[in-house]
Each structure stands twice: as C-alpha cells, then as structure tokens.
C-alpha cells in the first residue's frame, strides 16, 4: 500500500504533503491523493487504450497521408493524394453502397429471425436443450471456417445446395451461385445472418427471462390474444435488448471480413466488395497500404457518425 501511495504521490500535485501526512491515519487518505489516486486507478486502462486504440489510430492516420511501399517502407508524405485516389475510385462507391446494404440486411435479418427463434426456445418443450444447442452451434465455429464450409456447399458442380435443390426438383440445371454478384452477395448476406443468430438470440433469451410472467397472466385475464400480448407486452419490454443487439451487431457486421473474403474476395467484377474487403485488397493484394489506410480512416469516420446519431437518438428516447 505504501508503495502504491508513494507512486500516487509522485504523480500527484503535492508529493511532499502526501508523504508527510500519511502516518496521521487512513481517514485522510482519499483527500490527500485526490489528484493522484484516480489517475493511478485509470492508468492501466489508459495504457491499454493507448496501446491498442490510440497508437494504431495515429499509425493509420499517418499512413493515410504517406506514400508507403508494399512492404511498409515510408517513402514520403503525399498530403491528401491517397484520399483523392480512393474517393475517385468507382469501386469505393460501389463498396460503400454495398457496405450499407450488407449492414442493414444482415443486422435487420438477424434481429427479425432471432426474435421468433428466441421466443420458441423460451417455450418449454421436449428436446428444448437439444434445440438450444443446435442454434448455438454455429457460434462455436470460426467465421472463416464457416465461410469455407458454405463455399463448398454452394459449389456449382458438387455442392450440397445444388444437389438438394436438384433432388427436390426445384432446379433443372446447377445454379452458378458464386459466378455473379447478383446471386453471390445475397448468399453471403444469408450466411452473415445465419452466423449472427446465435449471439443475438442469446441476448433476446436473456431479455425474455427478465420479463416478469405475472403481467401476461393479467393480460390473459383481460382477454388479450397471444398476438396482442406479444405486441403490447413482449416487444416494448424487449426494446432495450433489441437496441443493444442492433448496436453490437452493426459494429460487428460493418467490419465483418471473413465471409466475403473467403467466398468471393470481393469479386466477380468487384460486385461483392464491402469497404473492409476493399481496404484489405488495396493493402495486401495490390500492395498499397497508403490508400488502404485512407479507406480505414473513412470507415472510422462513418462509424463515428453513426455512433453519434445513435447516441443522440438514445438521449431523445430517454
């Protein structure tokens, strides 16, 4: 304790006093190190934040104004050239639009499906724990591995999806799912939804169990139908959980890289790029870390704006 206090004293504004006054008793302690102690207590998280957020942020910011070789050597600074480069690239705007579609579709689809899934899993039925496990299982698989499995499943020549559709008589010839963005991108969105369901439905199950059961009893006595109970009781009470699920999923899905990269690498004809795969391709396939850093900064700005909007909406809600 004394060593910690000494350290606190060192960082504090009145080191001499703190050390001198220490023997007089513990009651004085909070007041003495008013300046140092809080700083000391947040120091570990501050160091962590600097190391994993602020330092990389400045590195990226610096790279985004630099001419960087494919192997990371700084060849000098180029001002806004990297940004101009990116902002005049039509692929960037395609990716931006698709990022929006991707995020809205995956998050929206996930929430829409997860509510009924969680509702069903909340009911008491035979084999519920098995059903819960099955819904949870995709979570245990890494995204990249899940994407590879799906890539095989959607293979035109020997994938199980075409096989199944053909044996059901729904299609006569194999569908080339990944040959066109028009089919590949929706497939990727579908997989994005599928892998997000376990986490989201878990949040909702938690939400359901926090709703007291007696209000349903009261509603039933008043003659409310199941649909009315859902609309006027469950949904409003689930609202905070839906908000948190939406926010967490947006942050996650906006930056989600493995599914698209594994399945189509942004192709064919750049038709499935979202911003994060576009940035990755710039940096690591085309060897242009500078413009890639510029894309990252733009992405950060977008997330910032959306977070700002969200916080404002939240405040108005309250």
């Amino acid at each position, binding site marked *: 304790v004394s060593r910690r206090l000494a350290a606190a004293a060192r960082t504090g504004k009145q080191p001499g006093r703190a050390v001198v006054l220490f023997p007089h008793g513990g009651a004085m302690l909070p007041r003495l190190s008013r300046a140092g102690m809080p700083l000391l207590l947040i120091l570990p998280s501050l160091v962590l934040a600097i190391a994993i957020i602020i330092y990389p942020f400045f590195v990226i910011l610096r790279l985004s104004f630099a001419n960087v070789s494919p192997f*990371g050597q700084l060849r000098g600074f180029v001002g806004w050239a990297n940004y101009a480069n990116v902002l005049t690239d039509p692929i960037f705007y395609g990716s931006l639009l698709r990022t929006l579609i991707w995020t809205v579709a995956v998050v929206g689809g996930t929430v829409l499906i997860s509510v009924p899934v969680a509702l069903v899993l909340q009911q008491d039925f035979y084999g519920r724990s098995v059903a819960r496990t099955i819904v949870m299982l995709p979570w245990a698989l890494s995204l990249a591995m899940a994407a590879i499995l799906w890539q095989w499943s959607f293979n*035109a020549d020997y994938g199980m999806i075409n096989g199944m559709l053909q044996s059901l008589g729904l299609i006569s010839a194999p569908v*080339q799912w990944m*040959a*066109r963005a028009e089919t590949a991108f929706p497939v990727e969105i579908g997989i994005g939804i599928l892998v997000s369901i376990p986490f989201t439905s878990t949040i909702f199950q938690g939400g359901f169990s926090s709703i007291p059961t007696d209000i349903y009893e009261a509603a039933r006595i008043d003659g409310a139908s199941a649909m009315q109970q859902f609309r006027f009781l469950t949904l409003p009470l689930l609202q905070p959980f839906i908000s948190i699920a939406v926010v967490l999923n947006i942050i996650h899905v906006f930056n989600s890289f493995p599914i698209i990269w594994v399945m189509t690498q942004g192709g*064919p*004809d750049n038709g499935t790029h979202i911003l994060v795969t576009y940035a990755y391709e710039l940096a690591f396939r085309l*060897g242009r870390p500078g413009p890639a850093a510029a894309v990252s900064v733009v992405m950060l700005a977008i997330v910032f704006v959306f977070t700002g909007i969200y916080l404002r909406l939240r405040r108005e809600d309250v």
Partner: protein
Amino acid sequence: MTRSASGFGRRLGLAAALSLPLAFPAMAARPETVRVTVAEYSNATGPYFEKMAKQFTQANPGIDVKIEVVNWNSLLQKLQTDISGGTNSDLSIIGTRWLLDFVKDGVAEPLDSYMTPQVRDRFVPIFLKPGTIDGKIYGLPIAASARAMFYNKAMLAKAGFPDGPATWDEVVAAAKKIKADGGYGFGIQGKDVETDVYWYYALWSYGGDLIGSDGKAAFDGPAGPKTLDLYKSMIDQGLTEPGVTNYSRTDLQNLFKQGRLGMVITGPFLIGQMAKEAPNLQYGIIPVPKGTTQSTYAVTDSIVMFKNSKVKRAAWKFLDYIFSKEPRVEFNKNEGFLPTTIAVAQDPSFADDPRLKVFVGLMPNAHFAPVISGWEDVAKDVIDALQSVYLGNAQAAPALQQAAAKADQALGR
C-alpha cells in the same frame, strides 16, 4: 525473436531457471535456424520440403531448417505482412513477376556473391534470366512451366478433330460439336490467380502484347477486343463451362479430369495429376491454338533470400543443396514442372518424356511475364475488365481501354 540476442538471452534465462543442466548444451550447440516459406504447388510440396530439410540437417548438423507451406492465393499477402512486421522468413518462394517490387524496396538480397561459376552453370540460362534484374541475380528458378492445350481425345475425335484443334477457328468448331454431345467445349478461367493469363494466351496468339515497348499498357490494342470478343462469343454460345467467373484454374482442371471438358490450356503439372486422379482418361497435349502466330506463356517461380536474414550463409547452403541434382529431380517428378537445371533436363526421365517435350518445344515462342513494377495492379485491372465482359456488364473495347488507363497509372508509380 529466437534469432535476436535479447530473445535468446531471455529464453536462456528461462531455461536456466527451469532446468539448469539442460541450458548448457543448448548454449554450446547454438544451432542456426533457416526459415523457408514455400508455396503449395500440390499436396506433395510440403512433405517434399520437409524431407529436404531433414536430409539437409543430417548433412549439416549445425543448421535447422523450418518449412512454412503457404497457399498461392495468399502468399504475397503473407509476405507483405511479414516483411512490414519484420517477421519474414530467410528464404521464400515468390512469383518472379513480383521480384522487381522486392528489389526496388531493397528487400531481396543479391545472390551473386554466393554463386560460384559452377553453381551458375547448373541452370538452364533462359530460366535464370527472369530472376536477374540490372545484371544481378536475385531469384533462383525453383519452378518453371510453359502452357499448352490439353484435349480429351475421345471428345475431340467425336467432334472431328482427332489431333486436337490447331487454330481458334477449329477450337470454336470443335466446341460446337462437343456442346451438341452434351459436354463443355473449351474451358475459360474466370476467377483467381492467372485469370488474366488465360486471356493473354489468345491475345499473344493474335500478335497482341501486354506491355508495349514504351512501358505502357498495350493490351487494349486491336488484338485485345478481338480476342476478348472471341472468348465472350464462346461463352454466349454455351461453348464453355457455364458460369465462367466461378471457375479457377483448379476448377477447370477438375472438369477436365472428370471427362466433362474437351479443351483446357494449362501447365505441365496437369500431367502428373491426370496420372494419379484420372489414369484412364485419354488426352493429348498440343500447342496453344494459333491466331496469326504461335505463342505461349512461360513462367518461373523464384526462391529469394531476404536482406534482413541473419543466417545468410546457412540459407545459401540450403539453396545450394536443393538445387543439386537429386533434390531437383525429385521436385520435378512430384510437381511436373519443366527442368530448370541442366543436369535434370538431361536426366532420361525428363529428356525422353514425349509430353514434356511438347512444352519444351514451345519455349522459343514463349512470352515471359514482363519485368514491371506493379504487376498485381495490372493483373487486377485486366481481371476486372475480363470479368465485367464475361458477365455481360461491359463491352470488350471500352472495358479494356479503361483497364489500360488504370494500369498505366499503376505502371507509372
């Protein structure tokens, strides 16, 4: 970390704390470790290099060799990340087309000071040339191949071309017959690495070129739209496999092995795969179809030493070893590449192989990948244009012009 002095010291300290007696032999021997990144050519690549590492260490007890096998599609990405972070291996296989970028950044070590004249004389000169930049040798040719057309004998005989098509007109005619019989005529690659090259075959055969003598993109010249329209018309008529943008080179080769594809252009490595996976399928190998001229693509992969390696002497010893005759013979047998050293080329198992002879005979007309900075940019621009045309999103001429304009920017960087 293990190579740096402080890392070593820390490890030693830890070892001493854990078990003092064990720490001393480790310090006495101090084995050098050479890390080697190799590209996965086939399932045999990893085991082959592991075996070489083991044999080498037996002959050179002071040197450990660690092999890392990496998929081709992610090799450059991995190297760029590793080099940026300073965690790259000592030796690596790379596509020779990337070499100029490595040399420009001072990442690759020139090998001339290690190479005695005897070592230099081991190599087939034409394959040593692509790894030489400004008169210095930076990359040794670990693999070399040329491209030719493989055709399914039964399908082509039925289509009236028992010896395979000699020109693009004959390819189209044969593909129409094959289509009528329910097969896929001519395979066109539409995704992943070398999608661009698959079109260059036709481009070159009509006298077009990728980069002009002025160092600017030239693939949008007259031969460009002509040959791209040729491919597109084959796609539109259903003379290729459906959904070409869904087929990589490996996918096309698989269709060929299954006997569903009549014609495909690829490298000698398919010979070995056919022997293993489709031994009963009768096929022939002929030159890339002729347009106005006979041509093909020749490509080498290089093994380079990185400048930041701390064990260059040991790394060179390993290179010297894998380029001696026995290891080379085994490598070429496994992978089916063309011999890059004279001793291997003269070995009866290669010199007398009629199939390899087709490829060797094509070498005088072969185009190597041009030594340019930013090859991957150009490849990406071309692939984008090809895919948009294959998918019907763009017309050949404007798509190629746009790609050429973008490529010029990259070439000027």
